[in-house]
């Protein structure tokens, strides 16, 4: 196949991925409260509306608080886990890794129901902290993967060198391991943040009736018919995800973060 044909294939698929979002972006510009394409009476009216209506602002704030805290919790669990597993091969290390990877590998409805029953049994059902902890556990996998990747890239002799030069365990961690891991921790945090922001079923089953997050709000609103605000929120969410991943791509090595060994050499 020629190069042009390959590029066309890739571009057509990307265009298909972007098509629904383009339509939604256009729809969000509709002036009247209707869903038309091409938009009627284009205006940014509904973007302003979003920030004026507390029925949308409250879920937005919930979503941001939950995502920020849950991603921090995920990193706080993943960092020591990755460090512990890094130099160990035993059963404990393997069991810990498995527990860190499992929540994300299974259909999320399983975790969601588990969390729901758990919080119902222990109290906490319907509280925002329950959503935060549940998301934090569910998303541990992402920072675990990125931090482990970062650790894999640390040359063992750097640590030996630091030790010979007088650094104890804490000194090695503070002056060598941590500075080298920071980019991977940040990406892990960002991945977890974006996924928490977009997560529906766990948030819904753990506290959906009391702590409305934005995806829950959108789904609820859909039942009462379409309004351009839905399109506005979708556009903002898609833009936010793209912005965060774009920043990771700009300041980090995205191909390597996603597992390409080869491209780190060029």
């Amino acid at each position, binding site marked *: 196949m020629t190069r042009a044909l390959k590029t066309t294939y890739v571009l057509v698929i990307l265009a298909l991925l972007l098509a629904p979002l383009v339509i939604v972006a256009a729809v969000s510009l509709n002036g009247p409260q209707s869903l038309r394409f091409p938009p009627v009476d284009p205006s940014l009216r509904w973007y302003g509306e979003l920030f004026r209506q507390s029925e949308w602002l409250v879920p937005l704030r919930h979503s941001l608080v939950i995502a920020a805290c849950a991603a921090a919790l995920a990193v706080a669990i993943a960092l020591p886990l990755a460090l512990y597993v890094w130099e160990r091969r035993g059963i404990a290390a393997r069991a810990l890794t498995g527990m860190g990877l499992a929540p994300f590998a299974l259909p999320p409805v399983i975790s969601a129901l588990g969390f729901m029953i758990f919080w119902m049994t222990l109290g906490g059902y319907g509280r925002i902290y329950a959503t935060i902890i549940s998301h934090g556990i569910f998303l541990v996998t992402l920072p675990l993967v990125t931090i482990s990747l970062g650790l894999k890239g640390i040359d063992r*002799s750097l640590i*030996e060198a630091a*030790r010979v030069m*007088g650094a104890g365990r804490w000194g090695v961690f503070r002056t060598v391991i941590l500075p080298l891991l920071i980019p991977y921790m940040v990406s892990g945090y960002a991945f977890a943040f974006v996924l928490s922001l977009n997560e529906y079923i766990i948030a819904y089953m753990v506290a959906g009736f009391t702590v409305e997050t934005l995806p829950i709000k959108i789904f609820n609103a859909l039942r009462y018919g379409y309004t351009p605000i839905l399109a506005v929120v979708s556009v903002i969410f898609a833009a936010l995800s793209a912005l965060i991943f774009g920043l990771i791509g700009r300041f980090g090595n995205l191909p390597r973060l996603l597992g390409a060994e080869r491209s780190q050499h060029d």
Partner: protein
Amino acid sequence: MTELRIDSLSKDFGTFRALDSVSLDIPNGKFVCLLGPSGCGKTTLLRLIAGLETPTDGRVYVGGADQTEVPTHKRGMGMVFQSLALFPHLDVADNIAYPLAIRGVDKATRRARAEELLELVQLPGLGSRRIHQLSGGQRQRVAIARGLSINPQVFLLDEPLSALDASLREHMQIELRQIQQRLGVTTVVVTHDQKEALTMADLVIVMKDGVIQQAGAPMELYHTPANAFVAGFIGTTNLMPCTVADGVVSVLGHAFPITEGDRIAITSGEAQLSVRPEHVLLGAPDEGLPAEVSFLRDLGESLHVLMRVGDQEITAHLAPGHGHDLVTGQTVGIRFRDGEKVVVQ
């Protein structure tokens, strides 16, 4: 005073014995090379001195103090790693001053010391460069400077020059030796390159299979190897099976009388004869051991003559101007220069 003392040190990795009861006394300020093929235990010995491995048995002393139980980071040694292990997240000066930063030295002093060391390794003013901006040779120098920044009692280097190309390597060997002489620091270098060891060391320690084969000054090892392995590892040589009896060494059916200066460790029975190629003399077929010339290699500075006696290969290195009449296939008579025969086990 003995600065570095190794007392019957052993190290097992599982069932593999990497180091087998090695003892050494290294006097203060000496430059020592641990020399041997890969897997001989030289790197293990260096890592045991640094405290990066725990010995299965034996002890390590520095300046009379037992270091065996002291953790690596409290031994106060300087070390250069094979991969150099320069920190990619720190600039050159921070790399060099890292041991000082760990010890809580203030920033101004650290900067001043880093600059001082950069001058020592001839890289003045490069303190704010990033590591990836440096050439291979520059990185080498930064690693050496970093290893010396706390004036260590013992300076350890693990194959420090192996990543450099040949001409730069020779240059760095000389420079490393000069720096060491200026500072007088006790230095231990691991290398598999015998020329490197001969260039730099006061004391060469040849190792094989976790055991010291011979320890001595470079020329002592060259002229009086303790065994066939050392003879073959230091410089190039012709090793031939021989028998010794009544003042005569018999090689391949030809008897050579022992002359003054010959180093005969075995006075009777089966042994190995080692003769350096420059001490192999050629004459008419009836003047010595008859051999057939199999290949001629003219390097300008010398002529290498490869010869065969049955299955045995013997090489002679002739000075310029000699042997121009030789042709491949010709038969010559081999003799050995008086006082240059070495008989070892």
